[in-house]
């Protein structure tokens, strides 16, 4: 059986204790989107500032467990300064690592261990997850997967809102 060290990697605890990009952005011009995990009460607030198709700035607020908060912190570092298409690739790569399949980004995520329905997301080629790979151990604890994906789902929703009507 998987041990706790698979779940609580040192880098995860570091992001939990010292979260990056913590705080708020004035909205507008930034977009503010809230995400909830009704099972455990985790709350994530993503503030994202999209300028010329790039995530110019991002802040994370809210409260939750070490997995949800560290995942949000790592995500904020990973997407800051990236273009929207790069963020989309990262999101898909992260979701693929979490073995998540779902009908749409931002929708109700379904833990699909081993892609039960055979339609797990394919990881885009050449995308480097870096620190985010530390969260890979979460898939061994299925009830925690939603903790890790909460911030990514919330970001996807925020970016949808931020770019709505600009295309």
């Amino acid at each position, binding site marked *: *059986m998987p041990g*706790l060290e698979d*779940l*609580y990697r040192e880098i995860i*605890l570091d992001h939990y204790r010292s979260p990056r990009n913590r705080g708020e952005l004035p909205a507008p011009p930034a977009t503010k989107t809230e995400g909830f995990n009704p*099972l*455990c*009460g*985790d*709350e994530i607030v993503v503030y994202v500032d999209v300028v010329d198709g790039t995530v110019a700035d991002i802040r994370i607020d809210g*409260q*939750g*467990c*070490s*997995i949800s*908060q560290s995942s949000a912190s790592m995500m904020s570092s990973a997407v800051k300064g990236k273009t929207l298409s790069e963020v989309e690739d990262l999101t898909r790569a992260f979701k693929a690592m979490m073995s998540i399949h779902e009908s749409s980004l931002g929708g109700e995520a379904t833990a699909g261990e081993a892609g039960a329905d055979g339609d797990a997301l394919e990881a885009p080629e050449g995308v480097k997850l870096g620190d985010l790979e530390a969260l890979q151990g979460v898939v061994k*604890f299925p009830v*925690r997967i939603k*903790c890790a994906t909460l911030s990514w789902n919330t970001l996807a929703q925020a970016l949808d809102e931020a770019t709505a009507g600009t295309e």
Partner: protein
Amino acid sequence: MSTTDTTADVLDVAAIRRDFPILEQEVHGKRLVFLDSAASAQKPRSVIEAMSEFAENDYANIHRGVYSLAERATARYEEARVAVARFIGAPSAAEVIFTKNATEGLNLVAGSWGRANLGPGDAVVLTQMEHHSNIVPWFQLQQEKGFEIRWIPVGADHMLDLSDLDRLLDGAKLVGLTAMSNVLGTLTPVRQIADAAHAAGALVCVDACQFVPHVPTDVVAMGADFAAFSGHKMVGPSGIGVLWGRAELLDAMPPFLGGGGMILTVDLEGFTPDAAPAKFEAGTPPIIEAIGLHAAIDYLNALGMDAVRAHEVSLTAYALRALTERVGDRLTIHGPSEPAQRGGVLSLAIDDVHPHDLAQVMDEHAVCVRPGHHCAKPLMKVLGVGATARASLYVYNDTDDVDALAVALADAADFFAP
């Protein structure tokens, strides 16, 4: 003699544990420490066997069948209703409605009594420590009927603050309150509130889901007009609950769900509902589950509900002391500090460690606790927390379980905040 020493005297927990097959197993190579009975209790062999024996020998759909098997099944189902009535001090078995769970019972009160009796200018008074099941049905009905919802606040001592009760009750038609908080363990002064409510012309709907399994219950002495609880929290099966209501109220209420079993007659012009309890039991009810609930009541009666309560008071006292000693100042135990004022529900918090993480580490110790908001988000907001890790005690728990909880909690605290 200290309260701790009496724990073993009140109930023979070692013998009780042998009645619960699930407790024989090990998890992660350790003794299973099940501390989540407030969510759902484990089942003794007598309940499991009563249900399978009934299914093997006596099962048929109830009512109206003329063959002997159907008669036997009907008789057993109605015997279960009588057992429930006796267990809660109901004057008549006809006042006992079998539902799916306590949630359905509370929805029945809102959907039937509430829809027929509430409108603009009326008020429903709830407490801030209600479970969502005694909040959301009233919000749903409020959207349709436009009445006011008022809140009895929770004080700093985690008891209900009744200082403003008279004003809250002015113009109220119903008070909905929990008899025991599923988060804080707080026992509420149901009788006192009921007397005040009745004097103000309001009915009292009690969420007794955490109360009936743990405390001797007399719905009449309590001053309730309705009381709802679930079978699965009182060592019975899931899928069955009970709504008790005073006969004259049930008689005047319209049906809740429509369908077979709840009518006197139907023609192409309309229908005439049957009398209670059939009026509120549309469709095939949880028949096997009623047999299981009867066996659960027999099991609790054999232990004696006074003994169950005494056991939990002393074990809660032990837990409050042992956890504080072992874990120290980092630990917060939400809820009243006096065991006589509370049930064995311990909502735990460690400074700077999220309950979800606490529970994860505690699982390594085979200690089952529940992290989250416990379907009481308004109360969480009052407490100023997002979630707690809840350990809850029942008849099969002993000081070994509490000691294991203390060790696991201390380990979890050290893991995240060394």
